[in-house]
């Protein structure tokens, strides 16, 4: 023993703390994280809990902690009270078209900024980055005036068109395209006689698919959850899901089982998407943060 310790003595000091650092986290770390995850889950669970019972539950001193059997009855009532199917359909239509167009236009612009040479490229890109700081919310009043002039107010196009492409999307796709698409590949396609647009479609787009997927998920969620602008520009008869929820709540008397059945219905689709794709979304956030 003494002999062996004598020999590797010099490298020992750095080695020992290294082991401590790389050791598994202790119970405290897991417990704290578990508290946070439970805290993240709780509001969802609570809303389902109330939604699956009747309003009387809320008056009980000790609220029950397991779901009851009234969820479908409450959900049916939601569909009777507001145009929930229509709202769902509207939200799907808006979010899907906004997502498709944002991904397409952002990838195209990202390709141009990352790989093509043209006059004014760098200043134009800097301009886009600067516009990231302009809060779009502040433009709602003139935008509303403009939409009224166009006769678009109340129509879904008033929600779709302003979101066709975003500065964030362009920035995001450009950052990814710079590394993901080698210049040689583009040159090879050009030598083979590909036009620019074909080069984009057949060479660039397949290579940037992961970033496009993450952008698509972000855009879909943001669009699905948008509230202020639809509230301003749409009317009560033609709502998105978020507006329908607000209508449910702003009635004269609040039936919480009904309202929370509505929130549960509106949350389930996006929660499923999130749980299926959570891995990629997390990877996307991590990657974006490193680059941004």
């Amino acid at each position, binding site marked *: 023993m003494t002999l062996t310790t004598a020999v590797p003595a010099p490298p020992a000091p*750095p080695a020992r703390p*290294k082991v401590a650092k790389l050791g*598994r*986290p202790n119970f405290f770390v897991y417990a704290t*994280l578990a508290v*946070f*995850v439970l805290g*993240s*889950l709780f*509001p969802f669970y*609570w809303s389902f809990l109330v939604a699956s019972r009747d309003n009387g539950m809320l008056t009980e001193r*000790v*609220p029950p902690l397991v779901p009851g059997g009234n969820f479908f009855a409450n959900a049916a009532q939601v569909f009777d009270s507001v145009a929930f199917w229509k709202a769902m359909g509207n939200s799907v239509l808006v979010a899907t078209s906004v997502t498709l167009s944002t991904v397409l*236009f952002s990838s195209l*612009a990202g390709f*141009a*900024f990352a790989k093509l040479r043209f006059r004014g490229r760098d200043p*134009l890109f800097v301009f*886009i980055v600067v*516009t990231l*700081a*302009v*809060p*779009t*919310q*502040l*433009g*709602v009043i*003139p*935008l*509303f*005036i*403009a939409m009224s002039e166009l006769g678009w107010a109340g129509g879904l196009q008033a929600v779709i068109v302003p979101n*066709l*492409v975003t*500065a964030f999307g362009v920035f995001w796709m450009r950052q990814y395209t710079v590394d993901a698409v080698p210049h040689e590949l583009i040159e090879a396609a050009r030598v083979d006689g590909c036009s*620019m647009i074909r080069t984009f479609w057949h060479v660039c787009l397949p290579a940037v698919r992961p970033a496009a997927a993450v952008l698509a998920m972000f855009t879909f*969620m943001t669009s699905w*959850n948008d*509230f*202020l602008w639809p509230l*301003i520009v749409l009317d009560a008869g033609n709502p998105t899901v*978020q507006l329908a*929820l607000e209508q449910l*709540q702003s*009635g004269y008397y*609040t039936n919480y089982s009904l309202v*929370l059945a509505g*929130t549960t219905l*509106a*949350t389930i689709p*996006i929660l499923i*998407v*999130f749980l299926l794709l*959570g891995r990629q*979304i997390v990877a996307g*956030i*991590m*990657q974006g*943060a490193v680059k941004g």
Partner: protein
Amino acid sequence: MTVVQAPRRDDRPSAVPPRPTFRHRLSKWDVKYSPYAYIAPFFVVFGLVGLFPLLYTAYVSLYDWEIGDDDPPFVGFENYVQLFGDGQFWNAVGNTLSIFVLSSGPQVVIAVLLAALLNTRLRGPTGWRVGILLPYAASLVAIGIIFANLFGNQYGLLNSILEAFGLDRVDWQAGTLSSHVAIATMVNWRWTGYNALIVLAAMQAIPKEINEAAVVDGAGPVRRFVSVTLPLLRPTLIFVVITSTIGGLQIFTEPKLFDVGQGSNNGGSSNQFQTVTLYMYQQGFENFDLGYASAIAWMLFLLIVVIALVNFLITRRLASTEGGRR
């Protein structure tokens, strides 16, 4: 290479007039102009819904502009003058700042600590990360309603818990501070995990050698966190603080849904939690005074710029002095 190129050069003069020119020219145009076509959609959309509205807001704010008004009278800076004397506006500014401080302060601190926990060698790291990020997927409106219910005065779960412990129930909606705390809780619930992941990404980008060097120098975990990790996180912390400033100062959905008088834009019975955006919405789309609402929008914009700048300077300084010798 030279062998291939040489004959081409010779061919060129004779081949100038007929067909290669057209295709060549087409391809040249393609190279020269198609990039502009690819970036055009952004500039068209931004021009229409970003730049134009921002300038037009300033224009509208100089008029006594009511919804449906065909010929609004020009009033110059009267809207702004009126705004400076408007107690409800300053009340809204105060509420916005208070909610902002209560939300982004704890949010950033907890996010950094959470990121430090997530940065250990966890079992199933992705599972934990997805769990932490879960609130980000929630619909803002749904969450607003759910939290308003949890914080309800009569039947809210929180008050039931307080009573179960023999404490007094709190009328979350009625009090100024208590309503701000409740709204800040919603904001924090939604964004802390998201910010933690952004900070975590930056932590993972820190080279291992730096930490190992600190270990060799005898620095404990806390010391390493304060003296090595935090300073290196500076750009990310600035990013997180700035984005949460911009988001936090525009807060609208949470206070709108937190009101007991549902569908109201008052922000509580005595405007105790009416934010600037909510006030802007009330002036513009409840009272139909678009000119005044535009003035509020511009004041909010200036407020955001000033506070983002102040935060930027503070964060930069904090993160660098904590680094000590650099």
